[in-house]
């Protein structure tokens, strides 16, 4: 197989890894004001993802870096084209990341409430915007050569629209899909990782928003079939993804939290994979003329770079998966409100910082 194909698959794998893993982190952040009725419950939710969220977010950074290395023209056109959307995304991720670390650093409810808002917005906006970005990549966006340049050289292909062109009906549908799917995925993760009140409220929420997410996702994914290069493969994938989703809800009812999480992860895996399979061999579709599509051939790095990077990826990815997997094993214990120490940051009373007031 040619290396450009390998790298198309690897980029897809990185996005799947990111959406499965950070998907539930984002979901938990969105659910913070909904399920976290008091500070203790909010702390249970935050500590459920505390040890892993940062490692999960690295999947995004690596997806970005890998796109830069393997498909520089894709990276360049997409990141400059979706400029303001990515700016908002960055601000959201900044606030969210800082909020996790800082919210317990002052003993004040108003301080924490402010950071909780940051976590909610910093989670909800990315969950929506990732879908919007994907919708524009797949459904097409106004890409054309710069005026007066060689139309045969993909290095001249640029995004010619503005911020509001990104918010078209299809991409909004995909955005709502990722928003709702991640929210539900987060609730399923909480059902698996917590016990007591938080788990109960997460479970009852799954029954409410799980079906709604299913409806929106089916609409968005069926709509995506109209852009798919190979419906015969992608449509069955979408149908299996939908079945896995219903299975996840059903297994939650049966109390099989672990399997429910496996199935909701499967849904995300299949849905994202279906989008990539339908996109191949394009990497960014032009809504102006298919001659201006960025493809794995015209947007990629040369063979030498791809060979080097393939070796790095083939060796490192399994190692990363193993040690990240170990992290989940280390923190496998369910968390409940009774386990949360009174004093944030400080373990038990014998390890408390002395007040200097």
């Amino acid at each position, binding site marked *: 197989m040619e290396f450009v194909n390998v790298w198309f698959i690897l980029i897809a794998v990185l996005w799947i890894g990111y959406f499965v893993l950070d998907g539930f982190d984002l979901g938990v952040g969105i659910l913070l004001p909904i399920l976290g009725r008091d500070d203790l419950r909010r*702390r249970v939710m935050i*500590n459920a993802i*505390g*040890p*892993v969220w*940062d*490692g999960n977010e*690295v999947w*995004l*950074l*690596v997806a*970005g*870096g*890998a796109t*830069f290395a*393997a498909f*520089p*023209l894709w990276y*360049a056109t997409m990141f*400059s*084209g979706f*400029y*303001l959307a990515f*700016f908002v995304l960055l*601000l959201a991720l*900044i606030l969210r*990341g*800082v909020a*996790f*670390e*800082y919210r*317990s650093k002052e003993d004040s409810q108003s301080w924490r409430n402010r950071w909780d808002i940051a976590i909610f917005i910093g989670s909800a906006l990315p969950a929506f915007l990732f879908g919007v970005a994907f919708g524009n990549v797949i459904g097409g966006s106004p890409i054309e050569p710069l005026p007066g340049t060689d139309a045969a*050289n993909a*290095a001249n292909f*640029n*995004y*010619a629209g503005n911020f509001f062109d990104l918010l078209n009906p299809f991409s909004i549908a995909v955005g709502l899909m990722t928003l709702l799917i991640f929210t539900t995925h987060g609730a399923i993760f909480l059902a698996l990782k917590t016990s007591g009140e938080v788990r109960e409220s997460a479970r009852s929420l799954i029954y409410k928003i799980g079906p709604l997410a299913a409806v929106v996702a089916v609409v968005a994914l069926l709509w995506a079939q109209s852009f798919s290069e190979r419906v015969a493969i992608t449509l069955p994938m979408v149908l299996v993804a939908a079945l896995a989703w219903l299975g996840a809800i059903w297994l939650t009812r049966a109390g099989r939290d672990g399997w429910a999480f496996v199935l909701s992860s499967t849904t995300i895996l299949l849905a994202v994979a279906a989008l990539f399979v339908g996109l191949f061999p394009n990497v960014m579709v032009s809504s102006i003329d298919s001659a201006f599509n960025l493809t794995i051939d015209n947007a990629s*790095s*040369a063979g*030498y770079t791809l060979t080097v*990077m393939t070796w*790095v*990826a083939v060796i*490192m990815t399994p190692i990363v998966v193993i*040690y990240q997997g170990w*992290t989940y094993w280390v923190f496998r214990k369910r*968390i409940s409100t*009774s*386990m*949360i*120490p009174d004093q944030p*940051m*400080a*373990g*038990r009373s014998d*390890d408390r*910082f*002395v*007040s*200097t007031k």
Partner: protein
Amino acid sequence: MDVLDLSRWQFGITTVYHFFFVPITLGLVWFVAAFQTMWVVTGREKYLKLTKFFGKLFLINFALGVVTGIVQEFQFGMNWSDYSRFVGDVFGAPLAMEGLLAFFLESTFLGLWIFGWDRLPKKVHLATIWAAAVGTMLSAYFILAANAWMQHPVGFEVDQDTGRAVLNDIGAVLFQNTAIISFFHTMSASFLVAGTGVAAVGAWFLMKNRQIDIFRPAIKVGAVVTLIAAVAVSITGDIDSKIMVQQQPMKMAAAEALYESTTRAPFSVLTVGDVSGENATPILEIPGLLSYLSTGSFDGTVEGINELQARYETEYGAGNYVPNVPITYWGFRLMIGLGMLGAAWSLWALWRYRGGRNPQKGRLFAFSTLFVMLGPLLGISAGWIFTEMGRQPWVVFGQQLTADGVSPSITATDVWISLIGFTLVYGILAIIEVKLILKYIRAGAPETVVEDPFKDAQSNDKLYFAY
């Protein structure tokens, strides 16, 4: 301002800001690892208390370093898409390697370290901070290799059809002398920054007569590391400047505001008057030092800005190839001066607190202690401003002008919005971060600590650590 100027301002502001957190992270993580190791080896509680104290400061700092780092990776594509198109084949590789080899390592193992005190046996938990430290160092290596390629592009050729750089030797990119020396120079400078910080915080506690037994070792370890780092910084800096003279002579000429080629060129420590023009008046000059820094001989000839400009015009066509001279000139001096002040303070601190002494007098020492908490950090920042501004007008030296790298598809309005947005949010976060750092310095080290959190967790249902 147009898209180019706005984008340069934005990249400058966000990068300088990001790089306040980076050297602290790169240096401090090893102090935390060392204190924890000393605790595990000796079993003495004060080392665990130091681990926790500096660990907390480290994490407050690290959080902002991480999130502002994401902006850096995205900005290449967002504001510099033509740069990204031109270099992606070469520059993207170390960036992707940084993610796969370094970011995963540091983030995952820091998560284990923060929350794992009661989940991992003592020695395994200790290993997690070492793994995270290695991750931060690898990250520095890859990004510095990528930057070194912008200073001195190697291991590639330009494809005549597409006009894009194409990698042909990854070994040359990763291991060229520019990359290696820049790594050692930046790492030793980071140790200098963190070392003075640790020692200065320790000295503050001794001056306040608080937790003396805990913080005395911090002064010693911090100051000794600073002094070793200062020697390493000087040696690597000297090698670096000789490499720079060969690869980017214009940068060195600008650093000294040397307009005409000169034999036995002096190094002016301070000047008055107009440093950008030819009529600056030096008030303190060391004869021949610039020649020595540049060529290794006090009698060597250093090329001046005017000769180089003429040479570049023949080589690259008409244009202005002179970087902003005042900024490079003062950046270079601030870098050296502030770093060396940190080293001098460390000597003073070692002398002052030698053999268990704790003199209470000394306003000047107290004042300089507060100053060195920030001084070396501003110094390393000045060094990078010098390095990057001194490369201008190139983004990739000799290959692509900064003006040719900017995104053609974004508007000035777009960049105004993001420039103002980033600056505002960064400003607010800076205030919050400094307040928290000061708060947690004042709070001091924990008075008591759990002997063995892992063992203790068997009989205690509460989490040892939680946000």
